[in-house]
């Protein structure tokens, strides 16, 4: 035996099949779109229109003081919707803090999805019931969780996959790299969706990465990387669905980079004029996910004015309901602060709870 015969010497996989396409994958407006199922396109369209309306409504709620903050996904609705719809009921979604729309599209009540941002509790929905992990504010920390959950599902023999969402900025965190490595080594049924929206708050891509694309990062870990037009909902949906199915079927993880753009400021508290040109925003507005699909549907005769109006009305009803319910004061019991720290209250917490109860009673009397 020489070193040439040892496992360390030879590359363990052929890198070429793992490489992403040189250009983002697209379907809408291409000849391949002719094969797309009209029913699927109709479903995606309705969801996109709702998604856009949801972003507009949530942003308005910040102005009315009903949300503490809102990180808008305007312009990124195709990714948000496709991520949710690529999953089956038993699969899990691991959203980042910007992804309340994906959470809503997965079926969580919008009011529950917005609890964190309204500020009445941290996670407002039942993660186990919906199979949606808590929105992750510490960036990229949810990615190893997704790997672990997917690994656990595989160990249990369950046909369950996890889809984890992260931003371009989040890929710089150590947790991103550790998650990808674990996923590939364990062949975990997990899909990583990087929404490359051009910015991490004010920091542009050039200061975030020197990689050819984020999708290329997959190769270094030994999983396929896919590059897709993140505003082409049909393309994102197809790529994610394939990746999730492959994962569920034991094919291992995939890294998907969706190229998109954050149309709004980082949050309502941010002033994007400090760090980017309006012309860039305008260029991306002209590549709008809702319009891209609308154009396709119209060209194929699948969308008339009546159908369009129905989608808008449906979105409007959702927004009206959300508005009304968000304007109601949430019923809060401060004593709940002590309830979920441990399974059982410690003696110290019991004492502190009694103190707060007494304080509140005194406050009511005065």
């Amino acid at each position, binding site marked *: 035996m020489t070193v040439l015969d040892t496992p360390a010497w030879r590359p363990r996989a052929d890198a070429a099949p793992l490489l992403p396409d040189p250009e983002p994958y697209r379907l809408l407006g291409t000849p391949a779109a002719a094969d797309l199922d009209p029913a699927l396109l109709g479903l995606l369209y309705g969801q996109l229109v709702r998604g856009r309306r949801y972003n507009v409504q949530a942003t308005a709620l910040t102005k009315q003081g009903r949300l*503490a*903050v809102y990180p808008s996904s305007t312009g990124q609705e195709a990714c948000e919707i496709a991520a949710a719809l690529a999953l089956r009921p038993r699969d899990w979604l691991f959203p980042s803090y910007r992804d309340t729309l994906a959470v809503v599209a997965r079926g969580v009540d919008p009011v529950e999805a917005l609890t*964190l*941002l*309204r*500020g*009445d*509790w*941290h996670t407002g929905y039942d993660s186990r019931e919906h199979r949606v992990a808590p929105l992750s*504010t*510490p*960036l990229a920390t949810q990615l190893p969780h997704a790997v672990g959950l997917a690994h656990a599902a595989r160990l249990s023999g369950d046909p369950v996959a996890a889809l984890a969402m992260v931003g371009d*900025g*989040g890929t*710089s*965190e*150590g*947790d991103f790299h550790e998650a990808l490595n674990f996923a590939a080594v364990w062949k975990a049924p997990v899909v990583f969706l990087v929404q490359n929206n051009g910015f*991490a*708050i*004010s*920091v542009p891509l050039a*200061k*975030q*990465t020197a990689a050819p694309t984020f999708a290329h990062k997959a190769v270094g870990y030994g999983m396929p990387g896919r590059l897709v037009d993140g505003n082409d909902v049909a393309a994102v949906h197809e790529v994610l669905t394939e990746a999730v199915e492959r994962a569920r079927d034991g094919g291992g993880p995939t890294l998907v980079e969706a190229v998109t753009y954050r149309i709004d400021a980082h949050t309502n508290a941010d002033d994007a004029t*400090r*760090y980017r040109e309006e012309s860039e925003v305008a260029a991306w507005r002209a590549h709008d996910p809702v319009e891209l699909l609308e154009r396709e549907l119209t060209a194929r005769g699948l969308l008339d004015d009546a159908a369009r109006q129905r989608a808008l009305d449906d979105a409007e009803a959702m927004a009206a309901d959300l508005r009304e319910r968000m304007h109601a004061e*949430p019923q*809060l019991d*401060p004593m709940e*602060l*002590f309830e979920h*720290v441990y399974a059982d209250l*410690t003696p*110290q*917490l019991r004492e*502190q709870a009694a103190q*707060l109860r007494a*304080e*509140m009673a005194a406050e009511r009397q005065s």
Partner: protein
Amino acid sequence: MTTATSAADRAAAPTRRPATMAQALNQALRDALTADPAVHVMGEDVGTLGGVFRITDGLTRDFGEDRCTDTPLAEAGILGAAVGMAMYGLRPVVEMQFDAFAYPAFEQLVSHVSRMRNRTRGALPMPITVRIPYGGGIGGVEHHSDSSEAYYLHTPGLHVVTPATVEDAYGLLRAAIASDDPVIFLEPKRLYWSKADWSPQEPSTVPPIGRAVVRRPGRTATLITYGPSLPVCLEAAEAATEEGWDLGVVDLRSLVPFDEETVAEAVRGTGRAVVVHESSGFGGAGAEIAARITERCFHHLEAPVLRVAGFDIPYPPPMLERHHLPGVDRILDAVGRLQWEER
């Protein structure tokens, strides 16, 4: 008025003008960058944006990208790179965007920054300043309001300081950057917009790290506090006069090193002490302070040293945070329990 006259005027009596703590911090960074070419500021969004709290506003424009640098989004990377820069003789000043986002850098901090001097018998000091906006009261969603000082003060090798006034914000940050040891510089974010008449031309007021200050003398009991709780304690002391209590207030400014002299002297003068901070009480800074007061002042104490602190819970959501933060009533309540009847 000629320029010459105004310069002379300024030299004689520096003009004081209203400034926010954020502006004072910005000025301290500017002056440090000007004074020492080894000083480098870096962090997430500190460049073009000027930081999410605008503390680094204009620094990249005025000093260039190499002196104030937007880094990739990775706190362990930021602090780890700062270690290497310090090894080469630079003086990095890094910003962690929020308290809870400093945690990915914890390993670099505990395993390297804090103990590099010790490991290398002094060959590799770590003149690094880690600026961390901390604390609650700003309606932030989860992970934006932690008071993380206890983690740091329990780590030997780190200085831990926190200003509570505009003037100290400037002075302490200059002192932190000038220090040859690593300094965790905790910026109380709800005081960023607090204002005072202040003049950056008075460097004589720069407090050395490790000195507490008596903000209000008092005869009947002493409140010991720091950072975001100082204004609350001063308000409580004012309100206490109605109850006939004359409360003194000590602002620690520096948790490590800890100024036992100033604290002990104040407590010996009153015989009663309450430590106030908004981080959780259990295993918090107040536990250390109370223990030291007991050790140093036992024979002067008329009552056990009490603590008023945040509850032992994860930081609450915005709509509930007022129940968690120590307020005037909770402080006065504690003062009322200092065994006055046994006098």
